[in-house]
């Protein structure tokens, strides 16, 4: 059976034009997808049943036992951490937040090690953005800053920017100018019209220089700013100012490097400044297919996009304090529920060590690095393949992922709802 207009649950592009062929409970072919999509749909590497670690060995357990034990671990904890959420659908994320308020837990999503600093910057200065179709139909200048879409968002350029024809640009490749700014000459830099190579840690200064030029202060610019020549800065600024519609996309090159959220703030303020002259928008290149959904769901329920601490009853948020890496580094949490992500692989070593010390439960379809750190893992269906639910694209457009077949695994929603009901039974309404 061929299913059309399938939504890809890999990266924040959330492409929804895949054609997937299914035989029984197996995907046999994928059309229109990138390498990442193909691997995701064709991957056949599921953990087949819940597993529990007993001493130095692993054993299979039933779903009922695994759910009962998860609830017991969470109820027994004084400071549980509920982490992950970006790789599942919104309905499951919603149960997660309600579980968090019920337990007085700390709940955080993968933004914490991704675009968390972008959120902090937006909370300082706002976010002039747009949906991706605005860029596709209008943008004559596109800037990729500290991001390498060819590797991380392989179809971003063909669907939304460089190669995407739109209403006002009928031959995008010729009419649209692409600028890549990075510390290294990435694959994406190779196909840019202009590559700006910055010294590591120099993003803030280069952004500040561009802001100064846009404000008419060319005379202030020294001959080089963080490795970028004055001539190139002037040229880039002229391109930015000459755009009819410009779009900046930025990545972890800004959020993870020195300056963090101040880099992003500077990029947003450059965008705001450019809007005094012409139209510009700026957008973070969100990584996981539904990380933005976790921000949305967390926000409408708790008021905050990530790092929400319910320990005091109310929702409390203070990134740097209530963020997962900090909580783990301080050895503060005494149990952890990981849903749809892999902190064992993607958190610093000291955090992985703490996850191994405390009872960590993982809800995830696959064996990953966190598996080895956990006490218990519950395999679930993969959203977008054998489970469905809401996802939010990197630009905030909500799309419902499809269920291509009914397999043998429960969804994240099924498992979390059972855990929630067990916890509620014990806690009552109190």
């Amino acid at each position, binding site marked *: 059976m061929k299913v059309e207009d399938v939504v890809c649950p890999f*990266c924040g592009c959330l492409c929804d034009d895949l054609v997937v062929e299914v035989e029984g409970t197996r995907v046999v072919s994928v059309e229109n997808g990138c*390498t*990442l999509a193909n*691997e995701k749909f064709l*991957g056949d*590497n599921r953990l087949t049943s819940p597993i529990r*670690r007993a001493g*130095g*060995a*692993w054993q*299979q357990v039933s779903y009922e036992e695994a759910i009962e034990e998860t609830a017991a671990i969470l109820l027994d904890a004084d400071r549980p951490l509920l982490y992950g959420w970006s790789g599942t659908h919104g309905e499951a994320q919603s149960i997660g937040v309600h579980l968090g308020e019920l337990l007085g837990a700390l709940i955080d999503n993968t933004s914490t*090690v991704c675009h*968390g*600093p972008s959120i902090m910057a937006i909370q300082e200065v706002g976010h002039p953005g747009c949906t991706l179709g605005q860029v596709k139909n209008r943008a004559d200048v596109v800037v990729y800053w500290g991001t*390498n879409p060819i*590797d*991380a968002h*392989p179809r971003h350029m063909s669907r939304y920017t460089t190669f995407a024809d739109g209403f006002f640009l009928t031959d995008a490749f010729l009419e649209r100018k692409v600028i890549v700014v990075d*510390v*290294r*000459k*990435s694959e994406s830099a190779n196909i840019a019209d202009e590559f700006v190579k910055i*010294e*590591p840690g120099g993003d803030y200064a280069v952004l500040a220089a561009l802001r100064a030029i846009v404000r008419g202060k060319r005379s202030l610019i020294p001959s080089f700013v963080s490795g970028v020549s004055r001539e190139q800065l002037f040229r880039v600024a002229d391109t930015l100012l000459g755009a009819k519609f410009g779009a900046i996309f930025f990545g*972890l*090159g800004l959020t*993870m*490097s*020195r300056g*963090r959220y101040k880099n992003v703030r500077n990029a947003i303020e450059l965008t705001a400044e450019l809007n005094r002259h012409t139209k510009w928008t700026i957008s973070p290149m969100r990584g996981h297919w539904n990380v933005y959904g976790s921000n949305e769901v967390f926000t409408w329920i708790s008021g905050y996009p990530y790092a929400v601490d319910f320990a005091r009853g109310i929702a409390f948020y203070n*990134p*740097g*304090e209530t*963020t*997962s*890496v*900090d909580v*783990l*580094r301080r050895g503060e949490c005494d149990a952890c529920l990981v849903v749809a992500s*892999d902190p*064992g*692989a*993607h958190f*610093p*070593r*000291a955090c*992985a*060590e703490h996850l*191994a*010390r405390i009872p960590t439960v993982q809800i995830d*379809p*696959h*064996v*990953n*690095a966190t*598996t*080895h*750190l*956990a006490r218990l*893992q519950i395999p679930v269906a993969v959203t977008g393949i054998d489970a469905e639910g809401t996802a939010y694209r990197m630009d905030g457009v909500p799309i419902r992922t499809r269920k291509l077949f009914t397999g043998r695994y429960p969804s994240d929603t099924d498992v979390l709802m059972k855990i929630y009901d067990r916890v509620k039974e014990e806690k009552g309404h109190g």
Partner: protein
Amino acid sequence: MSFILNTGRTIRQGSYVERKNTPAYREEASTLYMHEVDMLDREIESGDHVRVESTQGAVVMRVLPAAWLSRGEVFVCLGPYANHLVGAETHCTGMPDFKDTPVNITPTDAPLVSVADLMEQCGGVRYEG
């Protein structure tokens, strides 16, 4: 410390991300890219193993040359190998120094370890079911 460790996504890392216990993932996640002149300086050949050490710990990686890096920088895709070296300090931002970790690099004959090995070093118990 003689190099700055930068991390980021690669398409191969992304492709194998749901199969972290396979040799393919291990190969990608433990590959360290280095400027060719730096390799010459240190007498490192393409494919050689090196011991990469930060204040947080040490891990063995395999070196490949990269013209797209500046001297003094090395690149490893994000994942458990790189994170064995990255500290948990976030400077009150929640975000560790994923793109900015000073490391020392020395040639070694030691073998590459698996993801399960790394997690055992963190106190876990390998699952090989």
